[in-house]
């Protein structure tokens, strides 16, 4: 996805891109959007940095030290909400996924 497509990305687009990462994260089943994969042990420390690089590259964003908050990363839905906020800082809260889905 390229820079000037940022604005056109829907929550569904972001979710499916984030899901691709988790489909390759050594997980033997689909992770639910609200499942805490960190506490389930699905994302070891080696993959955590790969996830950062993956979302940066996929969405043309930069993960800063201020973004290092488990609340931005602990579930797929939270990663999606985080990406949305980085792409459009006015797009709302961490629960933006469900809000967005109902509004779109």
């Amino acid at each position, binding site marked *: 996805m390229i820079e000037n497509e940022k604005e056109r990305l829907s929550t569904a687009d972001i979710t499916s891109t984030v899901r691709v990462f988790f489909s*390759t994260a050594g997980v033997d089943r689909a992770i639910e959007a609200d499942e805490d994969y960190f506490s389930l042990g699905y994302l070891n*420390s080696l993959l955590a940095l790969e996830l950062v*690089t993956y979302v940066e590259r996929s969405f043309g964003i930069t993960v800063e030290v201020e973004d290092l908050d488990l609340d931005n990363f602990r579930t797929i839905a939270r990663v999606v909400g985080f990406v949305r906020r980085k792409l459009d800082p006015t797009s709302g809260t961490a629960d933006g996924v469900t809000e967005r889905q109902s509004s779109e």
Partner: protein
Amino acid sequence: MDPDNVLEQVLTGAPDRDRLGTFPREAVDALARCGAFGVAVPAVHGGDDGSARDLGALAERLGRGCTGARGLLTVQEMVLAALLRWGTAEQRDHWIPRLVSGELVAGFAATEPEAGTELGAVSTTVERDGDELVISGRKVWVTFGSSADVLLVLGTTAAGPVTVLVEADRAGLERVPIRDPLGMRSARLADLVLDSVRVPVANQVAPAGFGLSHVVATALDHGRFTVAWGCVGMADACLRAAVERVAGRDQGGVLLRENPVVRAMLGRAAVAVASARALCERATTSRDERTPEALVATVTAKYAAARAAATVSGTAVQLLGAAGCAGDSVAGRFFRDAKIMQIIEGADEVSEVRIGDHLLRSSARPDGGGAL
């Protein structure tokens, strides 16, 4: 003097530094004057804004001549990378220009007596006390630990792993130089004892919980990259020494180069060097393109290059015979250094597991996975 000549002059001192186990401040300053520490640092922080390719080329050049100099580049670059990636604006402004200029030498203190590969098991404690952090624990095998001005220390808190910059002159920090190590003898290796060392809270890098998975992981990723290219330099230097010896050696009337066994040894060594270089090139491209695969590509390159350095230096010592075993032998020095390269920044076996994991993950991809 031309930076190129300055660099060559520093490298010329490698045998003496290795023999004496020293790395004088003047050599650090000379490397800094050549711009060695700012190659891949953005211009806004006083660096040269170079690419991974530029950094790799420098690491190869230093590796070809002096493992201590390459080791210094590696630790400086590891701490720089951690700060560039996860430092606050204030931390970057304060530390990065000083590291680039060589005013400060950095050390990276993660490994402990009971936590090597499994860094999640570190027991160094970091506790908050007002505006300060109090750090206690032991660290081992810190490159330039004997002379570093600031150390990036991995510790643990109730909220998970945390990294803290600890100035070496803080009360309670004791350095214990490692005497006569197998290799890396000029890299000022030291163990550290931290006994309630106090630093300002502002020295913490990234929130607790992210010290290992993000800060240390970033530093180690960068460390692997310069170690990998350094190993290519070592391996290539050993191959050249072996070829030079074989091409000129008259063994009791029979030329060494006419012996097919000797030629086969050179052939194997040449393939090892070329393969390592190709994997390092691939990792370099991946890093310059900032692909997520850059991490595993770098693990792979470091693994292959360290093995190439170990096997090719062994071949060179074998072919050089008595000259290879002499105290002033470059091949002999690199033979000792190369063994350590197979252990630091991820031992061979750890890299193998990680590469295997990556393959299995790739195979789960909807497209069936790409190349390694």
